[in-house]
């Protein structure tokens, strides 16, 4: 029961970005993909979500090649929040979240109770029920990001991929989003796979880290295993020391 990359090779035209990568991301875990800019984090995430086709190798979900699954069926099992989704002009939070129901709705099928319940539940999970009627562009950055997360939660897929969900947020709202995802992961067994930039937050909120460097995979495993000075050197060219986070006990990166 997992999302796996098997000998996955990805690239654009003559440029190879990921080479023969093997990964096993078990269901129910919280995984973070880390690495310097341009190393292929988004490329990998997009391939896991079937947004780009592999050059070779495959991605499987519970043993099934995701490219062999019907789009709609896959969308019921796996949701992705891209880095910069587009908001239609003047859309309200409630209308935005409703669009998450797309894979569950038949051709011309009327809106039903299950759809309504899923949206209400998703809005409640991100604490935006009170703001459902407000236009998205009147919200703060943190609230807006929570609205997008509500959209993919309303999709009710058991695997959720997110590309840099915290990048434009201040620290408080970064914590907010990650706490929310962790909560969801604990409460409903949601598998969360995200790309993050903050190493310490990633260490704190993840069961598994996937560390990519300029030349591909550097290490994967739990935060203690992955975050070591020499691996940070390989991946980022960063000289750093590791200490234990005094609050969470997870490894904490201190740049030198």
């Amino acid at each position, binding site marked *: 029961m997992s999302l796996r990359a098997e000998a996955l090779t990805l690239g654009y035209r003559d440029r190879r970005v990921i080479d023969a990568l093997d990964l096993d991301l078990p269901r129910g875990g919280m995984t973070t993909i880390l690495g310097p800019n341009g190393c292929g984090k988004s490329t990998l995430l997009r391939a896991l979500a079937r947004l780009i086709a592999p050059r070779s190798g495959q991605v499987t979900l519970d043993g099934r090649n995701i490219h062999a699954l019907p*789009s709609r069926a896959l969308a019921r099992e*796996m949701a992705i929040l891209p880095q910069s989704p587009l908001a239609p002009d003047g859309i*309200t939070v409630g*209308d935005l979240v409703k669009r998450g129901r797309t894979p569950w709705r038949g051709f011309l099928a009327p809106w039903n109770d299950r759809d309504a319940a899923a949206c209400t539940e998703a809005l409640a999970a991100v604490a935006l029920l009170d703001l459902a009627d407000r236009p998205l562009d009147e919200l703060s950055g943190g609230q807006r990001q929570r609205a997008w997360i509500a959209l993919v939660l309303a999709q009710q897929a058991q695997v959720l991929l997110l590309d840099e969900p915290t990048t434009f947020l201040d620290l408080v709202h970064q914590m907010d989003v990650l706490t929310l995802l962790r909560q969801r992961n604990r409460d409903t067994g949601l598998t969360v796979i995200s790309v993050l930039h903050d190493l310490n937050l990633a260490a704190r909120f993840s069961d598994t880290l996937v560390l990519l460097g300029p030349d591909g995979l550097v290490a994967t495993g739990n935060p203690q295993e992955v975050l070591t000075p020499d691996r940070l050197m390989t991946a980022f060219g960063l000289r750093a020391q590791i200490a234990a986070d005094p609050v969470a006990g997870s490894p904490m990166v201190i740049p030198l």
Partner: protein
Amino acid sequence: MRGGVILTALLFAAVLVAVLIGQVDIGMAELWQGLITGEGPGALILDTIRGPRVATAVGAGAVLGLSGVIFQTLLRNPLAAPDIMGFTSGAGLAVVAATALGVALPMPLIAACGGLAAAVLVALLSWRRDAATPPLMLILVGLGVGFAASALTTFSMTLLPSEVAADAQRWMTGSLAARDWRHVAQVWGLGLILGLVTFGQLQALTALELGSDLAAGLGLNVERARWGLAGTGVLLAAVGVAVAGPIPFVALMAGPFSARLTGARTLGGRLAGAIAAGALITVLADLVARAALSGIQLPVGVMTGLIGAPYLLWRLSREMERGEL
């Protein structure tokens, strides 16, 4: 909702006034009598003189408006309308060329072929490997294809006998003169079918509005949905061109105008609004074009051109300022 009611009321009022006013004005009483008894000047106006003309204007404006809002939504750009991107010119070229060459096929079919050919040409010329086409490029390529089609149309007209050429010239500006009930049946019948096809694709367009990645994540086959919608949009525009010529700027203006007026937030509401606004603009433009100067009947396209060109310039400068081009 209130905006929608206002828009509908405006459309009904415009249709009524357009039937009453013209070279010979009639009163409500005469119109009513004509409607009930089928006799008198009211009946003549309704059956032959202005009835088919106004009904064609409503139909052509509606399909052009819907086509415009489909492309504007699909390409996320208020300038991306079938008249700006050369599709209506392509349809017009096909019609004139077919007439010149004596091809005896139904006009909507010929116009559809021309519109689709122009669209495919624009898509091919602006296609980029591995990257989305920037909107400005698409619009410039479209403008270029449109100009080329217009030039070829002018050339085709030289091949026509002079009486026919004068008609063709008029038609090319967009004209509703001498329409009969066959034109009405064509544009309403095909428009209705294509309208239903569009509303069948509403869910896909709604998902595409969120960007292609999120749409794909929501289970949409993005490429197929895009082609389906673009094809429907081109056919809608072609149906309008087949009965009324390539009336400029209606498709461009209808969507933004109705969005302003109705404030519709749902996509379905915006599409419906653009249908009504396209019809309203066309009926009013035709009314002004034939009633403004006594004794002279201008083609409707002259009027929409007079309103549309400044609108286009304003829109262009605004988009440039906001850096969205």
